[in-house]
């Protein structure tokens, strides 16, 4: 806060005290150095794993770990508020990449390079490509805490059987499937265009398959001229071609993912395929259990013509990470991070349907609610040469949101591929 800001706030405070005899604030956050390790955690059904970890940690440590759960929607905003208000937590959940870059810039995060050097078993515990995604400018700031969430192509096996076709392996397969299903009156691909990041998955895979992993790495490094790579233009043209062919039906702009529209279309057989993160499986299991268990197929994103990228590469969210703030008692925090690859922790994750990114996960996968799917996912990630973080998480938020907007405009035919590339390159 600069002085003008502070006097303004002080004035506001004085006025408030004059006018409102109010008391009691939100009381969020707390002081560190009080023998507590405050862990800020994204609240959902899976957070039980971290709770158990905290309990195990507290048995042996002189510092108590306290998990503070924050509801999923607005987690990012709340984190930003807490970090800005000088009451930062000691350890917090995040997506890595651009989602924590602002905090790195403000020197609020602890580099974990030393911790990894002193504890070689920590580095060996995780799949390398996933651990790497927790780095910013080559410095480790995040340790994986969750399962992996690659984006894959889900499909409705029943619809495929009835049409007598197979899941696509090449781009030509995919194009002919679009025609086949359109003739049948079935939307080839469910797309929740109302939730913009679903459209991003398409573009991201296309760029990765066509130009390789490096294209976006350059952009993520801050060089926005990287958007001018021919692979990006090709991907944008391809998106437009897909839309024109009716790959996503006519009304994808009013389908929402968070409201379950796209998943319902797939489950009801009104759409044949759905490109989505691996959590789609749990979504279907909750909303349409019969379909999930009987007819939900999954495969990889097909190769593209002239593709320089490795067809085994994946995009999505490698995992979620724990980062440590500079406020924390670093020794205690690093000790807490060691929880994330213990046998108990990994077993806990598997039982909750997650696919851990630790190297010791494989033998545990049989305990998963759906071992087959878990194994498929694990191998997909294990064998992937690269695992690219979702663009909107990899880029700092200031750039992520405009990128999503431009992608949305591209899908809705409001920009040409050339304009799209220009707009992205012009972002700051």
């Amino acid at each position: 806060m600069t002085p003008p800001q502070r006097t303004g706030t002080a004035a506001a405070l004085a006025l408030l005290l004059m006018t409102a005899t109010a008391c009691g604030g939100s009381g969020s956050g707390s002081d560190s150095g009080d023998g507590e390790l405050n862990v800020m955690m994204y609240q959902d059904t899976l957070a039980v794993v971290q709770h158990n970890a905290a309990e195990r940690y507290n048995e042996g440590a002189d510092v108590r770990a306290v998990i503070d759960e924050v509801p999923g929607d607005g987690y990012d905003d709340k984190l930003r508020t807490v970090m800005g208000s000088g009451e930062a937590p000691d350890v917090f959940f995040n997506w890595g990449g651009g989602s924590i870059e602002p905090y790195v810039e403000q020197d609020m995060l602890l580099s974990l390079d030393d911790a990894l050097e002193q504890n070689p078993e920590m580095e060996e515990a995780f799949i390398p490509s996933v651990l790497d995604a927790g780095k910013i400018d080559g410095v480790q700031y995040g340790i994986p805490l969750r399962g992996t969430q690659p984006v894959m192509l889900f499909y409705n096996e029943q619809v495929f059987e009835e049409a007598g076709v197979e899941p696509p392996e090449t781009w030509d397969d995919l194009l002919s499937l679009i025609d086949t299903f359109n003739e049948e009156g079935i939307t080839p691909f469910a797309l929740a265009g109302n939730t913009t990041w679903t459209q991003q998955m398409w573009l991201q895979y296309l760029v990765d398959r066509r130009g390789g992993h490096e294209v976006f790495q350059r952009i993520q490094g801050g060089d926005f001229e990287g958007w001018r790579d021919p692979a990006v233009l090709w991907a944008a043209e391809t998106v437009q071609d897909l839309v024109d062919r009716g790959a996503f039906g006519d009304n994808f702009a009013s389908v929402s993912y968070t409201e379950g529209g796209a998943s319902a279309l797939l489950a009801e057989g009104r759409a044949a395929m759905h490109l989505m993160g691996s959590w789609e499986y749990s979504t279907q299991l909750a909303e349409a259990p019969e379909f999930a268990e009987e007819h939900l197929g999954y495969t990889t994103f097909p190769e593209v013509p002239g593709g320089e990228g490795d067809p085994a590469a994946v995009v999505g969210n490698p995992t979620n990470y724990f980062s440590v703030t500079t406020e924390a008692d670093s020794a205690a925090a690093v000790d807490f991070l060691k929880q994330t690859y213990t046998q108990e922790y990994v077993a806990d994750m598997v039982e909750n349907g997650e696919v851990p990114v630790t190297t010791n996960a494989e033998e545990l996968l049989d305990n998963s609610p759906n071992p087959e799917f878990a194994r498929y996912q694990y191998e997909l990630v294990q064998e992937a040469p690269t695992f690219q973080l979702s663009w909107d998480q990899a880029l700092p938020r200031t750039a992520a949101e405009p990128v999503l907007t431009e992608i949305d405009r591209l899908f809705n035919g409001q920009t040409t591929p050339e304009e799209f590339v220009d707009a992205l390159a012009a972002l700051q």
Partner: protein
Amino acid sequence: MSVLSPSRDGRRPTAVPSARTAPSGRARRAGPRVGRPGAWWALPALAFFAAFAILPMGLVVYLSFTEWGGLGDPRFIGTDNWTRLVGDPAMHRAVVLTLVLSVSSWAVQTPIALLLGVWAAGRQRNRAILSAVFFVPLLLSSAAVAIIWRALLDPNFGPLAQIGPLIGMPGLDLLSDGAAAFGVIVFVTAWQFIPLHMLLYQGGARQIPASLYQAAEIDGAGRLRAFWHITLPQLRNTITTSSVLMVVGSLTYFDTVLILTGGGPGTDTTIVPYLMYRVGFESYQYGYASAIAFTLVVVATAVSLVMVRLTGFGAMRSTREGM
């Protein structure tokens, strides 16, 4: 909510003479100073308002010259945000959309509200019943209205999926087409706000002296001529008030856009307040968002000043609100 108990017609204690005996407001005789409240009576309200509206206004101006992401200190960057704003195609689109939305909202709502209001000012029984139905949308929040319409207009899981094929338009989908989605915003906000403006016109029409109509009748004027030459001119003030409320209101149809279209398809319904929300609270560019916000205030203030000029509020006269 006991304050909402019926006001017993607002009748005054019987000892009180009719309220209109003194000329209102202006030309008060210099009464004794005793028993007059000091200015400090108004201070709490003013201070409270200043804390949450006027002081923030100042902060908006200050922030618009800084770069700030919510962490650390705002960094002064001079007029960078403003030059960016002038050259930002997203802002241009949003401004145009906002203006078009204001104008079309006004053009849709005013005639309907005026006619309905004048009609409701009559005195037959069935009007009471119809009016009662008309007012229901007023009780719904913008959020509720947007949710209802979003459900009704869902092309896959709503009534449109059944109606479409019936009228020969399978796949009828108003929210995936830019122009149609914009039309939906205009319609839905009209659906929600027309009752309010209808009330204003009803109140205004009630206050037109009946003698004017009787005079017109003696002259043999028909209904249309009476409407044109008496009703409309008499409603001039009401039209101004209502129009300004509409225009300023339409600058802030934020809830509707957020829930109903999310600014989409693409950016076809991204109006200025929504753009500001995304820039500020989704990409944490508080400085640039403040510049956008300030633009919004300038427009709103300009409209309001015109209103004050036209209605003579500045002369500290009470308008005829029939209280």
